[in-house]
C-alpha cells in the first residue's frame, strides 16, 4: 500500500466570529520581580508565636492567695452579722435599754421557734448574699488569673483546691446562746426591784454590766440563729467554686489542645509558604537567594537595634500584633476580637494570615539591612536583568497576526521600577542595573520609593480578542462542555444561545476549523 505524505496543514483560521468589527482595546500584561526565599521564617516564626501563645503574661498573672482569706468562715460570719444588724427588726438602739433587750429576746425566741417566717427569710437572704458576694469575687479573681496564665491553670487550681479542702465551716455559734440571752433579759427585767435596796451608783453599775452582758449574748444568739443558713450558703458557694474549678481544668485542657493545633497549623502554613516560594522558581519571580534563620535574626537585630533576642522579640511581637489586628479588621472579625488579648487573636486568625503577616513584617525589616542590591550583585547583574526581562515576556500568542499588515498596530509599554538605594555601594550597583536595562531597550527605568523589589512591567496592547491564539483550544473545550450539560453563556447576549446553552453558531466554528485543516 502506498503511503502518501500528508499535506501540510494550512494556517488555522481565527476562531471567533466578527473579528474585523472587534475593538483593539485588549492587552496582555505581565510582571516580573525579584524575591528572597525566607528559609528562616518558620523557625523564627514558631518561636515568636510560641512566645505569644504560651509564655505571654504567665509569669506575672498569678492568682493572689489572699483572695481566699476573704472566703474564710469567720470573716464571712462577721460580715453577715454586720449585714443582719442593718435589718430594722434586728437592730439594737445605740442607747441600749432593758426594754429593748427584752423586746429583742422575745423576737429571738420567736425566730428560733420559726414563728417569724418573713424575718427568717430576710435573714437567710442576707446571709446568702454575703457568701455569694465573696464567692463571686473569688471566681472573678480566678477567671482573671486563669485568663492571664492559661498554661498555668492546673497549678493555680491545685493550690486553690488544697486550700479549700483544708478550710471548713467549723462550729458556727453556741447552741446555748439563745437561752443565755433570754436569761440575761429576765435578769434585767427583775433588776428594778433592787433599786430601793442598793446604793444608786452600785445599781447603775450592775445595770450597765447586765446590759453589756446581754448585748454580748445577743450577738452570740444571733450567730446561732443564722448558723444553719450560713453553713448552707457557705457550703453552696464552695461547691459552686469547686465545680467551676473542675470546669476550668477542662478549659485549660481545651486551651492546650487549641495551642497545639494552632502551632501545628502554623507549621503547615509555613510549609505551604515554603512550597509557594519553591514554586516561584517557575513563576514570574527571580529568587535572589535564601535568607537563613541566622541571617534573618542578625539582620533584624541590626535593623531594630536590639541588644538581645528578648528585645528583638518584644519589638516584633508589638509590630506583629499591630499587623494582625489590622488584618482581623479587614477580615471583618469585629471589635470584640480587636479588644481581646493578643493570644486569643492569634488563635482566632487562620495560620496562613499569621504567616503572611509575619513574612511581610520580617521582609520589611530584612530589606532595610539585608541589601537587595548586594544580593543582586551576588546573583550576577547581567544574569538578573536578562532573567527579569525574560520572565516579564507577555503571555500572549497571535501566530503573527498582531502585525500592521493585518491592520493591527501593536503598542508596547515597559516600565522598570527600582527600590531606592540605601548605601553608596547600592547607588553604584543600581546605576549599573539601570544602564543594563536601558541597553536592553527599557527606557522607562525609575526609582520607586515604595518598592522593596526590582519590578519589570510589560503591557502589550492594541489587539482584538478574536486573534488571540488561545481561542482555538478554548473553542475545543467549549465544544466538549456542550456534551456535559454546561451553561457557558449569559442569558440574552447571544441570540442563538438558548437560556445560556452553547450557541450553535459558535459550535459551527469547530467543524469549520477541522475542514480548514483538512
Amino acid at each position, binding site marked *: 500500500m502506498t503511503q502518501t505524505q500528508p499535506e501540510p496543514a494550512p494556517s488555522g*483560521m*481565527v476562531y*471567533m*466570529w*466578527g473579528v*474585523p*468589527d*472587534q*475593538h483593539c482595546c485588549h*492587552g*496582555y*500584561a*505581565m*510582571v516580573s520581580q525579584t524575591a528572597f526565599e525566607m528559609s528562616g521564617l518558620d523557625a523564627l516564626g514558631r518561636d515568636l508565636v510560641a512566645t505569644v501563645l504560651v509564655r505571654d503574661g504567665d509569669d506575672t498573672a498569678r492568682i493572689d492567695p489572699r483572695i481566699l482569706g476573704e472566703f474564710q468562715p469567720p470573716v464571712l460570719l462577721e460580715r453577715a452579722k454586720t449585714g443582719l444588724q442593718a435589718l430594722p427588726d434586728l437592730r439594737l438602739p445605740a442607747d441600749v435599754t432593758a426594754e429593748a433587750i427584752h423586746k429583742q429576746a422575745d423576737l429571738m425566741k420567736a425566730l428560733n421557734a420559726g414563728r417569724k417566717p418573713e424575718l427568717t427569710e430576710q435573714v437567710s437572704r442576707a446571709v446568702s448574699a454575703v457568701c455569694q458576694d465573696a464567692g463571686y469575687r473569688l471566681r472573678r479573681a480566678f477567671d482573671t488569673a486563669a485568663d492571664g496564665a492559661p498554661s498555668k491553670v492546673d497549678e493555680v487550681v491545685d493550690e486553690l483546691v488544697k486550700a479549700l479542702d483544708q478550710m471548713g465551716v467549723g462550729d458556727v455559734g453556741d447552741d446555748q446562746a439563745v437561752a443565755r440571752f433570754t436569761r440575761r433579759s429576765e435578769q434585767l427585767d427583775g433588776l428594778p426591784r433592787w433599786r430601793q435596796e442598793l446604793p444608786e451608783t452600785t445599781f447603775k453599775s450592775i445595770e450597765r454590766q447586765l446590759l453589756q452582758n446581754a448585748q454580748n449574748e445577743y450577738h452570740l444568739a444571733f450567730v446561732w440563729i443564722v448558723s444553719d443558713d450560713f453553713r448552707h450558703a457557705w457550703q453552696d458557694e464552695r461547691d459552686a467554686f469547686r465545680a467551676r474549678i473542675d470546669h476550668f481544668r477542662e478549659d485549660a485542657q481545651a486551651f492546650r489542645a487549641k495551642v497545639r493545633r494552632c502551632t501545628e497549623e502554623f507549621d503547615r502554613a509555613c510549609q505551604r509558604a515554603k512550597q*509557594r516560594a519553591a*514554586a516561584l522558581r*517557575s*513563576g*514570574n519571580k527571580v529568587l535572589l537567594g535564601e535568607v537563613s534563620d541566622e541571617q534573618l535574626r542578625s539582620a533584624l537585630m541590626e535593623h531594630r537595634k536590639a541588644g538581645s533576642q528578648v528585645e528583638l522579640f518584644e519589638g516584633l511581637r508589638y509590630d506583629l500584633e499591630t499587623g494582625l489586628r489590622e488584618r482581623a479588621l*479587614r477580615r*471583618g*472579625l469585629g471589635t470584640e476580637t480587636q479588644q481581646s488579648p493578643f493570644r486569643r487573636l492569634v488563635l482566632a486568625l487562620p495560620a496562613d494570615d499569621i504567616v503572611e503577616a509575619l513574612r*511581610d513584617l520580617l521582609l520589611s525589616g530584612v530589606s532595610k539591612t539585608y541589601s537587595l542590591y548586594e544580593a543582586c550583585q551576588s546573583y550576577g547583574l547581567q544574569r538578573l536583568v536578562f532573567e527579569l526581562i525574560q*520572565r516579564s*515576556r507577555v*503571555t*500572549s500568542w497571535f501566530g503573527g*497576526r498582531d502585525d500592521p499588515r*493585518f*491592520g*493591527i*498596530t501593536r503598542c508596547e509599554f515597559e*516600565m522598570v521600577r527600582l527600590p531606592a538605594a540605601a548605601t553608596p555601594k547600592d547607588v553604584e550597583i543600581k546605576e549599573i542595573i539601570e544602564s543594563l536595562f536601558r541597553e536592553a531597550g527599557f527606557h522607562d527605568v525609575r526609582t520607586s520609593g*515604595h518598592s522593596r523589589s526590582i*519590578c519589570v512591567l510589560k*503591557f502589550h*496592547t*492594541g489587539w482584538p480578542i478574536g486573534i488571540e491564539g*488561545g*481561542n482555538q483550544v*478554548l*473553542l475545543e473545550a*467549549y465544544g*466538549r462542555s456542550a456534551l*456535559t450539560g*454546561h*451553561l*457557558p*453563556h*449569559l*442569558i*440574552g*447576549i*447571544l*441570540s442563538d444561545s*438558548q*437560556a*445560556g446553552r452553547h450557541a450553535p453558531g*459558535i459550535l459551527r466554528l469547530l467543524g*469549520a476549523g477541522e475542514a480548514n485543516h483538512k
Partner: protein
Amino acid sequence: MECTLQEKEAQRGAEDALPGFLVIAAGGAGKASTLSAVRQHQAAEAPFVMHTLAIDTDPEGLGTFDSAINIALSREAVSAMKSDPQRYGPACQAVVRHHPHLLESETLGRGARTHRPLTQVAWELSEARILEGLRAAVHAILKRGPFARIQPVVLASMGGGTGSAALILLLNDFLNPQRKSHLTLGLPPDLVAIPAAFVIDAYSHALQQRSGATRDWILSNLYASRFELALCEVRGTRYQYIFHLGLGNDAGAVFPSIEEVCEANGLLAWEWMANFAHFKSRAVDSLHFAMTSAHFRGGNTPESLIPKDEWPPYASREGLDAGPGA
C-alpha cells in the same frame, strides 16, 4: 459664569492629577487579586486614593474590603422568584423554566460554581443594591479629595462563574456611557471614566481541577466570556483597556497556582494605577488612535471560510445591529 484664570488652572491641575480609583473585585479571583493590590498599596503607604469594592456570590471575606455587595442567592429570594418568575428579569425567568436544578436550596449562597447564568440571576435580584453600592463607593472616593475623574478598575477571572459574568454585567448595566448617568446622579455626568479591567485567563485554575469536565467548563466559560465581551464591544459597550494575564510565557515563567496569578494580577493593577498618568500620556499618543481606527484585516476569518447562509446573526454587523433575537 466665567471662570477666573486661577480657577481654570486649578481645574486643569485637578484633571491632570491622578484620578480616584474605584477597584471592583468581582468573584473569588477578583477578591484575591484586589487583596494583592491592597497589600502593595499599604506597603507603599497609600500614594493615591483607592477604594475597594467587592461583589461576589460567595460572602466569604467580603468584610476585608472598603465596601462590599453580597449578591449570594438566599433561599427566600429564590423561593419568591420561583413562585412568580414573570415578576423578575429575563435571566430569572429562563433559569426557573429551563434550569431549575441550579436553584436547589442546599447549594444556594455558596458562589456560582462556574454557572454564569446563576450569577446573572443573583445580579437581577440585587440590581438595586449593586447600583447603590457603586454609587456609595463613588461618593466615598469624592469625600477623600477633589477628583475630576474616577477611574473604575475591574479585577476578575474570566473562567469562573461570578467574575466572568460580573465583568460583562457591570459593563452593560452600570459602567457604559449610556447607563452610568444613574451612577453619577447629581454629580458631573462624565465623572466616572470608561472602566479598565485586569482579568485572569483562567488556565491555572482550569489546570488545578482534577476533573476533565470541570476543566472544560472553566475553559469554555473563558471562551464564552471573551466572545460576549467582543460582542459588547461591537455593539458599542466596551472597556477602555482590558489587560489579560495568562498561564505563562515562552521564557520559563509559568504561574504554578491560581494564588500566584492573582498576586501578579493585583500587582499589575496596582502598578498601573500608580503609574496611571505616565501610562495615559503614552497611551493617548499611540494606543487610543490604534483602538479607534484599527481593525483586523486578515483573510482567515470564519466569515471568509464558511458559506454565508451558515453564518449566525452576530457574524455580520447587520445581524448585530438588529440585536439579540434577530
